[in-house]
């Protein structure tokens, strides 16, 4: 152990001083989920397989492919199962968005979809925490 101790005197401390200095995150990192409406058919496989009940897909008009996705950042466990389940590549876990702390629970509810559709859904359901889609 003496060798380590003496060696350490001539070494830079190993501690990472995040957030003052940032280290690169690996390319495989799974961050915040992103849903793109394009290609989504509303098959609901992602919602069914989500182990954490973090995503809900609200169907406004199935024929016209108008969907809104309600995503709960705080419930998501970033396992990537929804990305695997989606056959149309609508979902990605973004590698660069991973600092997701927020000060209130309401900030964790994220709505994806065309702005007017989101407005419709939010207008129709003012309660922030809806049980199901």
């Amino acid at each position, binding site marked *: *152990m*003496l060798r*380590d*101790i003496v060696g*350490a*005197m001539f*070494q830079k*401390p*190993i*501690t990472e*001083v995040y957030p003052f200095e940032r280290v690169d995150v690996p390319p495989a990192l799974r961050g915040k989920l992103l849903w793109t409406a394009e290609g989504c058919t509303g098959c609901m496989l992602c919602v069914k397989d989500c182990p954490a009940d973090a995503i809900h897909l609200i169907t406004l008009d199935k024929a016209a492919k108008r969907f809104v996705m309600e995503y709960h950042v705080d419930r998501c466990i970033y396992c990537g199962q929804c990305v695997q389940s989606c056959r149309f590549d609508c979902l990605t876990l973004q590698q660069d968005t991973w600092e997701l702390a927020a000060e209130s629970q309401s900030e964790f509810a994220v709505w994806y979809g065309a702005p007017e559709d989101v407005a419709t859904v939010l207008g129709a359901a003012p309660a922030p925490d809806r049980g199901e889609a």
Partner: protein
Amino acid sequence: MLTLLAMLVFPGGLFLIANSVAYEWVDRKVVARLQNRIGPRWFQPFADLLKLLTKEEVIPEGAHVAVFIILPVIALASALTAALTLPVAGLSPVYSYPGDLIVTVYLLSLLTLCLSIAGTNTNSQYGVIGAMRILTQLFAYEAPFLLALLGPAFLTGSWQINEVVAAHGGQWLLFAQPIGFVIAVLSLMGKVELSPFDAPEAETEVVAGALTEYSGRGLALFLLGKKVVLLVGLLLIAALYMGGIANPLDYIVKTLLLLLIITVIQALLARLRIDQTVGVWWHYGVLGIFIQWLWLLVQGT
């Protein structure tokens, strides 16, 4: 008036407290660096102390309230009093008298006694076991500690610290009496319960030992008392074994050097079990100090 100021502010009292807290930072920082970590920033020990002082103090049921409150005060006060006879900051001692060496050593032990009483007073199993261990450890290192400190005094025929120091005239006794020096340093570590002699407060066994039930002000004072005892002990050993302390520079360099030695030992060793601690002291410590004294006696005659 001036004496009062000297006792309460500088070089006694406040200065000692600030100094010992700063030394705690040095200790923590160096250990961290030895372990390849960054360690705390300079104000962390002060912040810890201030935080503890502002926290609520919870007095456990069944504890004797007055004793519970007064013990930390006695502990800190005795540690601070012990410093009066020493050349703090390289200045001459505030209050020096024949036989003050013995008084100082016993004032330092008062903290240990207060800790053990505090442990048994709190009615917690951890506290009781911690107190038992503190006393067991006290019996292990106390006699060698006293003998190690009396070694330098023995040759001069005086038991007054500054006379002893003056009589050696700046000679570094640690080369003449190496065993005594080593034992003095190790027993100081035992006294303030530093690893590897930290069985009394081994957190993975007895949580915080005698201090388990202490919180807020009481805990702050006890911890501060330990820091002051460490500083006073360093100073005492530096004065006796490292050629006295003549000026502030001497003071800083010599005590820091000692602190560094203690820190490295701390980082290097695993905790000893209490029976092993006692074994080590009675096998090697006592034997060592006897050899040292035998040598002194031969030299003296």
